[in-house]
Structure formats: C-alpha cells, structure tokens
C-alpha cells in the first residue's frame, strides 16, 4: 500500500517534465515523421506523397555530399577523444603552467559556437591572420584558401570543432583521473612502466566510462550539432563542400521553403544518430558484461 502511494507521488512530481517533453519534443518528433512523407511548404496543407521525398533524397547531390562530409567528420572522433586525453594525462600532476592552462582551456568551450565560427572565418580568410602569420614566418607555401578549397574545408571545420571541445575534454578527463587511486600509479612506477605504458595500463582503464561518454558526445556533435559553426564559418560551402545532413534540414526548410522534404532529412539524421548511439551503447554493455 505504502509502496503504491510513493509511486503515485513520484509520478506527480515528474509529470510537468513529462508533459513538457511530450509537447516540445515527442510531438514535434512524431509529426516530423509524418511531414517527411508529405509535400509541404509550411503554409498550405501538407499533401501525402508516400516515399517520393525519400526517393528524391537518394538522388539529391547535396545529400550525397552531406553524408560523405558526415563520415569524414566521424573519422575525427579518435582525434577528438585522444588529444585531450594526452594533454590531461600530461598535466595530471601539476607542472609549470598547468594551472593557467586549466583556467583558459574552457574558454573555447564556453564561447558561443556562432562567435567561434565568425572568429575562425575571419582568421582563416585568404588574407586572414593565419595566412598572414604563415607568410610572415617564411611558411608562405603553407598558406592556402582554408575556407574555399573544397577538399580541405570539411577538415578545417572538424579541427575547429575539436578545438572548441578540447578544453572540455581535458577538464572532464582530469576530473575522472582524480578518482584513480595514486597507489596504482606508484605500483606502475615500481614496475618500471613508461609514461605511455602507465597511460594504457592505469589511466585509460580508470577513466573508461568518461571516455565512452566523450566518444558518444563526439559522434552526436559531429552528426547533429555542427550547424552554428558551419553556418557562420562556411555557410555549408563552397558548393556542398561543408554541407552536413543537419545543415540540409535547415537549408531545405528555411532557404528552399520545403518543410516536407526538410522533415525527410531530419528523419535521416535521427535514424543515423540513433543507430550510432545504439551501436555504441550495445558495445559498451557487451564490454561491461565481459
């Protein structure tokens, strides 16, 4: 009796949140699935047209480019994960400047992605600061059109994104490393482990869950949270060179006024993200079971 009463009260307290999730997330998500099968400009009534949008999606050259770019971005997840790990492991014990580094590391992370995008647009222009500096120090052969070269621009976008989250990763890893018993490091030292061996045998297993979280965050970021940086830095271009599926949702809805087709893009992004996250969670659970 007492148990039932407790459950009822708990449900009552989470009800407002559930309602908000239902109204602002679940309902729009479900209607998106419906609109994905319609021709709709957002003004007149949607017209059901079956799988026509999906057939169009498969023929769409901007979609092909966006998938290719998303896969290129995904290749940067290892760098996204390992770079902050190496830095965090290096400053785990205070060294000269590590305190200062910890303070400034989070600055790019707390900076709005819009500001960061605009900033890097200015820095990376043909006559921007980066190229001017390169030319100034005699490395003019390395200066290039960072934001115009179609084969280069998506890599530049990936590196800027890693730069934004790098400090967050370092702080996250440092927090997790703080929970590893110092005796394990002492034991590794007595056993004659090198810095790299200690990292592999002590640090990485000790922060595995944090790393898994950061990997998932990396995939979510690269697949579904790139819009502000791309919009402000490259506008998805040149051509479709930095066009990603998430950008396609916006582009079809608010540039081309094709909300039905835009919903089809959204369904694709949802399914893609869901599949990746699902696969990762399954992998983690299997490892835990082992």
């Amino acid at each position: 009796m007492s148990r039932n009463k407790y459950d009822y009260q708990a449900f009552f307290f989470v009800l407002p949140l559930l309602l908000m999730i239902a109204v602002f997330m679940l309902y729009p998500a479900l209607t998106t699935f419906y609109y994905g099968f319609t021709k709709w400009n957002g003004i007149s009534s949607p017209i059901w047209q079956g799988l026509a949008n999906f057939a169009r999606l498969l023929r769409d050259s901007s979609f092909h480019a966006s998938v290719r770019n998303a896969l290129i971005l995904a290749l940067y997840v290892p760098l996204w994960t390992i770079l902050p790990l190496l830095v965090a492991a290096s400053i785990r014990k205070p060294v000269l400047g590590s305190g200062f580094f910890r303070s400034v590391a989070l600055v790019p992370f707390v900076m709005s992605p819009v500001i960061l995008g605009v900033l890097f647009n200015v820095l990376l222009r043909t006559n921007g600061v980066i190229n001017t500096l390169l030319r100034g120090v005699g490395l003019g052969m390395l200066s290039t059109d960072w934001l115009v070269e179609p084969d280069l621009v998506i890599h530049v976008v990936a590196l800027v994104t890693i730069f934004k989250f790098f400090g967050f990763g370092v702080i996250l890893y440092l927090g997790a490393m703080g929970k590893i018993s110092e005796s394990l490091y002492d034991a590794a030292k007595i056993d004659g482990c090198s810095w790299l061996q200690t990292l592999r045998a002590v640090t990485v297993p000790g922060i595995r869950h944090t790393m898994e979280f950061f990997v998932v965050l990396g995939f979510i970021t690269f697949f579904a949270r790139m819009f502000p940086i791309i919009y402000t830095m490259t506008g998805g271009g040149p051509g479709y060179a930095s066009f990603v599926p998430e950008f396609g949702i916006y582009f079809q809805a608010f540039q081309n006024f094709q909300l039905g087709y835009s919903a089809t893009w959204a369904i694709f992004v949802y399914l893609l993200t869901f599949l990746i996250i699902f696969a990762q969670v399954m992998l983690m659970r299997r490892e835990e079971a082992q």
Partner: protein
Amino acid sequence: MKREKIGAVVLILLLTTATGLFAGGGQEAAGPVTITIWDWFTGSKGSQGVLADKLDEAFQTKYPDIQVNHESVPHPPYDIYQAAIVGKEGADCILVHANGQNFQDLGEAFVVIDDSIADMRDQFPLATLADCSPERDVSLGVRGLPMTVQGWVWYYNKQLFNQAGVDAENPPTTWDELLKACAKLEASGTVPVGFGKGIHAEMIIAGTLDQVLSDEEKRGLLSGDFLFTDRKCLVTYEKFADLFQRGYMDQEGLTVPLLREKGEEFMAGKSAIFRGFISDIFNWFEFGEALGPENLGVIPNFYFAPSTHRGVVGAAGGVGYAVPTYSDHQDAAIEWVKFTASVEGANLLLRNGGAVPANTEADRSLVANEVGVEIMELTANKLVPPTKAFTQTPQWNVLRSHAPLMLKGEISAREYGEEIEKARE
C-alpha cells in the same frame, strides 16, 4: 489522504493557469491598436535607419490611433518569417523582397489587399504589382505593395579611374573594355572589382544574365523551357570565372560572407568597381555620400556577345510590406502597407533613403545626386525583367552556393549550370 488532496489542488491550479494563459493569448487590449512591424531597416546604421524613423514618425502623425511597434529582424529574414507563419504568431506586417520568388513562395500566407488599394493601384507599374502576387499574376490577388524598384548596377570610383589612367567620363561599357580598365587599375595598385561572396555572387552573375537573356528566355527559366546550361548562360559564367582568375576580382571575396564588408571597402576607396543596388543599401545615395557625388559613376552592365540587350538594368518591384493572414490587426497593418508605398512614403524614401520608388507619382526632382538622376532615367527607360524573378528559390540558392567553385575554376561553367539545374523542382 491529506497529501493526495494537496496534490489535487496543485494540479487544478496548474491546469487553471495553463488554460488562462492559452485563452488569454488572443485577447486585445482596449484603446489604440498597436501593430508590430518586422523589417531590417529599424536600428540599422545609415540611411535605412533614418528612413525607418521618418516613416514611423509620419505614419503616427497621420494615424494617431495606430501605434507602431517597429522590430528589427536580421537580413535575410526568411527563416524567421517562415517560423512565424508556420506558428501563426509574429508581426502584423513584414517586409518582403518582391524582386525574387519570396512573394511567390510565401504568398498564401499574406492577406489579399486588392480592395484596400483600389484608390492607389494606378500609381504603380503593373509589373511591380505582379511582383507582389502569386505566380506574378495580379488576377490571383495582390498581397503587398512595393515601396521600391530594385536592381543591380556597377558603380565606379572616378578618382581611382583617373589615377589609373582610365577615362572616368567615358567608362568601359563592353567586357573587353572592362578587361583593359581592370589591367590598368590593377597596375595602379587598386583592387579592380570589389567582391564579397555574400549575396554578391548572384548579383554579379544573375545581374549580367539580365542583359544577356531575352525576356522570353528568362520566363523559360521558370517554366523549364530554357535552362541554366544554355550556351548564353555558360558564356556568362565563363566571363566571370576568367575575370576572377585573372585576379581582377577581389580574391578574398570568396571567403567573406557579408556583402557589407566589401561595400564599405568600396566606400573607403579600396576597390574601383562595385556591383551595388539601386535601392535599399549600397546604392547611389550611400556611395555618393561616402565618395562625394562627383567621384561616383554608374554603368548598367558590360556588353558582350551574345547578349540580347545593351546598357540595360534588370529590375523589378523591390521591397514591400505584406500582412500575414494570422494578424489580428489586418486593417491597421494594411494602412501601414499603403502608407509606405504612397506618394508621401515614396517622397520620404527619396529624401532620406536614396531608393528608386515604385510609386510613379513620387517627386523624382527630390533627387539631387547626379548618379541618382542617372539611375532614375535608367529605371524609367532601360528596365528589363530581372533573371532573379524567374529563378526558382532552390536554384537561386545553388547559383549562390556554387558560384565560388565556378569562379575559382574548381568546377567548369557547364558543371555549374548543371548543378543549378539539378535543384529544379
């Protein structure tokens, strides 16, 4: 039991509050009607900001019972408009471009104003009213009134021309003459043609197609009878790719997302030739103020074969206000639409904004700027329909997004045209 009672009371209170909020949303307060207006004029620096203030002031004097709440939206505003229209919540009056497909894309969302404008309909060229109608057909209902006529011309800095040894009083009017002038300008250390990819790429390309294509060919672009891969179009793309690759166009322009930045550089004398507007911003008025009217010249277009026209400007209805159907104050909002396009509003434009008014009864003698006078003559005698008016929105977006690749030579002129055609609905 007591806890359950408290819970029930809280739940009822929550529901009551929520019901009250939703029910109260549409209620109107007594007293003067307040209309909310969205445009990108308000608060902007330069002539547009001044114009917005003057329009507000004059309107409030004429209609004291209608309060104006002017709110600025970023340009381009269509993502915000689209969200407002889908949500049926937002401004009572919004500023729309009539020279593209915007009135056609969003037309269903706007109130038909034919009856309200019956007394002033004759003051506007039929073509500009068509620009504010679905499918550019006034019989389907006019949805807004154009304040301006908008088009693109090449402005040039006479001082920089003279310094480079180019005759500023007899500027280049053909493509070959342009190349020769650019060579001299470059040799004098000036950027010959200012350029920022923002909305500039489509301005230079489509604005040139305005003279290259016949009116029938332009109409064919919309219906699909004429394609962006036609030889005439390919020649045009190749001309600009060549101009860029020769280094005559600002090379940095491909990475600069905002036209404004490069427009301001032209005003600062850092480039010699610049594609600008005839209304709104970066026009004869603003450039004249910055460079001195005596230092500013205008060239409609540079001729090359096989162009259909010579020395023409592609222009259509510029910006105009429209009233979304969700507005609770449609009558008051229509008064604003009418006022801004009226003779009184048009004269305010001429005095303060440096625009070409769509209203034919506006007092054009108010224009003192020499180039402004020339523009008024051009728009009176040398106007052709703009390519933009006959380009589907998705195609227009590809024309813009792929222009840097074509200019840089990453894709050929044909591939560029094919990409634009792939976006055809």
